[in-house]
């Protein structure tokens, strides 16, 4: 069944703000984020007729955006500096006894946290954002990142640990 551009606009424009936010986090630059979103929408509109009805449109859009980013110059550079995931290592304990969350919350310091997220390797940054900010289910994340659900869980766990570890020195400074 062919889908019309009017339908595409109806489905895709509500995602515009979220996709831009995600793109900016990936590229860490306004112009590049705009180019990335623009290219994502162009590709998605071109491929809209092949979009499978009944599948998740949001995950489809994020997947296009991410794949476009990964093949860009900035994306290639970012991806090449990512350490290999140690997916096979058992998940670390979700929470340790000493955590910086309470201090962080009491200081309400969003900038500290934003810096820590910025400093995360790409694969950790994107999975944290998809889970916490976009509130995607593990299934949606699996589709977006083209990885199995088990990998979503282990990578998310490591990303959270890395984020907490990254916050510790920042908090001690403050």
């Amino acid at each position, binding site marked *: 069944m062919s*889908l*019309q*551009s009017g*339908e*595409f*606009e*109806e*489905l*895709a*424009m*509500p995602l*515009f*703000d*979220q996709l*831009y*936010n995600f793109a*900016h*986090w990936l590229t860490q630059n*306004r112009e590049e*984020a*705009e180019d990335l*979103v*623009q290219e994502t*929408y*162009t590709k998605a*509109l071109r491929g809209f007729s092949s979009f499978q*009805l*009944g599948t*998740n*449109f*949001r995950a489809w859009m994020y997947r296009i955006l991410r794949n476009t980013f990964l093949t860009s110059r900035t994306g290639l550079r970012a991806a090449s500096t990512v350490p290999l995931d140690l997916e096979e290592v058992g*998940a670390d*304990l*979700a*929470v340790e006894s000493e*955590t910086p*969350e*309470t201090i*962080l*919350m009491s200081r309400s310091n*969003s900038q500290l*946290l*934003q810096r820590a*997220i910025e400093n995360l390797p790409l694969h950790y940054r994107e999975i*944290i*954002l998809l*889970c*916490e*900010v*976009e*509130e995607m*289910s*593990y299934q949606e994340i699996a589709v977006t990142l083209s990885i199995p659900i088990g990998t979503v*869980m282990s990578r*998310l*766990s490591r990303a*959270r640990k890395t*984020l*907490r570890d990254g916050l510790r020195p920042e908090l001690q400074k403050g």
Partner: protein
Amino acid sequence: MVCESWKAQLDTYLDGELPEEEARNFDAHVRSCSSCSADALSSVQMKRAVQVAGKRFTPSTEFRRRMQQSIALKPRRGFRLGWIFAAAAVVVVLAAGVLTSHYLGTQSARDHVFSEIADLHVATLASSSPVDVISADRHTVKPWFQGKIPFAFNLPELQNTEFILVGGRMTYLEQTPGAQLIYDVRKHHISVFIFPDGALRANLDGESISRKNLPFNMETWSQGGLRYFVIGDASAADLDNLAKLFRAE
């Protein structure tokens, strides 16, 4: 450590991804274990902090305008290249439309939507994680949909009723994103689907729903630009009571 296995599940629990029964067990454990409840609290605080910090960048008005223009412009290009195919397609569609309208009326379009709704309901019940947001609190479930669907809706207060809110999930009908809410009443599961009314092409009003091909009771209505469907194996009276609560919102 005594709670090691619980703590390993903590993030999955807070992400709403534990299967229903495990989530219930976890819930019971957290309530009785101070160490796990303290950890749960820190993790929730971290989740919220990341959520706030992560919503950081907004597109400029100028960029939004450019994007909207570029999407609206695209079809013209396609028309130039493929006008012969487009014209042929129009002829075929028109011919098919004339022929099929003899056999299929609006009734079949309605039935199609109703059977799609029934399929969505069954698929949800068969799923190992039927809801993406598990909560009996409407003030938790409603905000979860924010940013996920292109409309807002109100959930009724259930105090002094037999209904229990189980949770919600995103769903799709005719490529339209919508909300699905699961309620329990005396061990019967009921789904409430909400979609933007204009997005559904079939005319859904009119005569009452035929149960001929439908294994469930169902009720549908339009209100405030939204189309509601209530479906389940509970009695028609139960469904009607739940529908009334939504209509009163």
